[in-house]
């Protein structure tokens, strides 16, 4: 049977103390994992930083492969688990890796930066396995993509247990994180019909400048999520989100100093966020991948017996969720 290619990005270090100590990124096929001893250097795996799965193997399930790593005490729990959208060969042969010493270090840096900037949700080996073992929560992974000979993170993959079942773009990822709980930064674009704020437009807006709708970019400052189980049968959750944000971009001159104008913007944004969030949630439910951890919440209310994964898989797609978003725009820049 043809095994799909499977790559491990591995830091390879010299034999015991002798001779050179050199760091090389090696890639090898899964079947060859045990044959890596062909190298002239002794391989130690303590510095393994990223594990990258090709799309085919990700669709089949990656737990058996991670399990062996987890059992090895020398492997760090901070290892990044990632999936590539193309063949992982392409990812590793991308030759533009900025100033990093090798592609392995570059991938680690890429994912780390994205996690620190909160464009991604961290998916280390520990976190992946924690979510995998959790009843009522599925892991997420960063998806890598090669564009113009350079690797980028361009979406996050939603898993069902250990199988990749779908993905969300980074824009959509904002809503995934919104539904997931607290985070510290992120921005969303909201389109608003100009008619609604017609009377608050700045005076010098001429008719030529008038457009049907305009775009507001809001930058999230703070959020608070409150998730409550309303009823078990039918399964219904209520999610209340308090978001405080600031406007960082707006391509129409609306006088936000007028409270009414701000109110309209807020209402429209709330509506938009809510729509988007519901859309994302629906998609995830169709994939039957509970990346938000609703099941975890549900299981804390099940007293008589422990919830099983199978039970939750059946309940999840039909779950109903009410989303209420309270947006509070706190700041809107100096020039309006």
């Amino acid at each position, binding site marked *: 049977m043809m095994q799909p290619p499977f790559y491990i990005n591995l830091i390879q270090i010299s034999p015991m103390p002798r001779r050179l100590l050199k760091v090389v990124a090696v890639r090898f096929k899964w079947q060859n994992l045990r044959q890596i001893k062909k190298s002239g250097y002794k391989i130690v795996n*303590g*510095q393994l930083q990223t594990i990258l799965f090709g799309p085919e193997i990700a669709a089949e399930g990656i737990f058996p492969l991670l399990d062996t790593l987890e059992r090895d*005490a*020398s492997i*760090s*729990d*901070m290892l990044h688990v990632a999936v590539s959208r193309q063949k992982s060969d392409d990812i590793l042969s991308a030759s533009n890796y900025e100033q990093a010493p090798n592609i392995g270090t570059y991938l680690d840096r890429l994912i780390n930066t994205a996690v620190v900037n909160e464009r991604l949700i961290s998916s*280390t080996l*520990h*976190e992946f*396995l*924690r*979510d995998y*073992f*959790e*009843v009522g*929560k599925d892991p997420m992974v960063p998806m890598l993509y090669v564009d113009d000979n350079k690797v980028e993170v361009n979406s996050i993959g939603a898993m069902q247990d250990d199988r990749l079942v779908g993905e969300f773009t980074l824009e959509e990822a904002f809503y995934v994180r919104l539904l997931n709980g607290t985070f510290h930064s992120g921005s969303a674009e909201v389109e608003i019909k100009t008619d609604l704020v017609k009377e608050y437009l700045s005076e010098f807006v001429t008719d030529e400048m008038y457009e049907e709708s305009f775009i507001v970019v809001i930058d999230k400052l703070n959020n608070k999520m409150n998730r409550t189980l309303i009823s078990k049968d039918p399964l219904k959750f209520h999610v209340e989100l308090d978001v405080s944000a600031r406007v960082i971009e707006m391509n129409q001159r609306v006088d936000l100093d007028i409270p009414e104008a701000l109110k309209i913007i807020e209402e429209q944004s709330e509506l938009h966020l809510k729509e988007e969030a519901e859309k994302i949630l629906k998609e995830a439910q169709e994939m039957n991948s509970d990346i938000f*951890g609703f099941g*975890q*919440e549900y*299981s*804390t*209310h*099940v*007293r008589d017996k422990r919830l099983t994964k199978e039970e939750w898989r059946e309940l999840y797609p039909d779950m109903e969720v009410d989303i209420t978003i309270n947006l509070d725009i706190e700041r809107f820049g100096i020039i309006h």
Partner: protein
Amino acid sequence: MKTPLQIPIDKKIKAVYLLLIIHTMQVGVGIAGLPRFIFAEAKQDSWISLLLAGIIIHIVVAIIIFVLRTYPNTDLLGVLSYCFGNIFGKILGMIFTFYFFLVFLSILLNYVEFVQVFIFPRMPSWFISLLLISLVFYAVYSGLRVAVGTCIVFYFATFWIALLLIEPITMIEFDHYFPIFHASPTEILEGARITTYSLLGFELLWLIYPFIQDQRKIGRYAQGAVAITILYGLYVVIVSIGYFSADQLEEKIWPLLTMFKILSLPMFERFDILAVALWMMVILPNLIMFAWMISYSCKRVCGFKQKHSLVAFLLVALIISSIVQKRENVNAFTTFIGEIGFGFGILFPLLILPFAIFHRWKGKKQS
């Protein structure tokens, strides 16, 4: 053996040291696996089991001190001969000494296991034991003062490791703690039973009692030590429950050490390796105090010189540790020690309590 012990003043130690000695005795190898053991029984309500176990240990410590105060300045062996006569007392004393030896062995084997799993898979067991045993010998050979000093200094050298759990704390999932009070009373009791034997070590009181300078304060400090241990245990258990998901926690043999795996300092990317090596300093006080207890009770029971029995039993421990190799054996042995430890540590004081009450009652009647 009934004659009160005369300990020279310069061999005595201050009662306040008990606070740290008993705490370090209780926290050693046991705490690394504690979260898993309790969790297997009581799930997210583990902390209730732990609190319950805490109460039990507090009571047991109080009983031990009560019993020791009943008889004039004596130790376990004296108490035994008061209660069961000289011959039976000696036999029981020997059994106790053997039990201490088994505990010593289980600590040693477990640490060897840590090192082999986390750092040097191929380092021979006998060699790691030899390193530890040579240090134990050096410390105990210099007397109780040095043994106690080692406990104190090593406590200060390692207590900060617990603070490093700050990183796992930031990754806690609060859903893991709910629903509260889910476990059945039997599960909680079972969890408490397992906890008590992971937190043994207060048996030291039985032997160190005559060496304490200000004996009135023993109760205060011994109970304080138990309270610190319980708080520490709670801390570790609560963090592990929040950090691991349920099934994951049950798979981890030493959740505490695994939690160090995500620590990474700017110049030190993998802290777990250092933590395991440093753990040597955490368990050395245990080994040293147990070695002292063994050699001292050998002297009391059989009249051997302390230095002879010390050398003899350390050699035996070294030989045994080089024979036992397999993980399952170590596990089974540890569980076995736990089971009998429950008897020696918890049940025995309860058993001896009526004798002490009777003795006091008799004494009152005579006067």
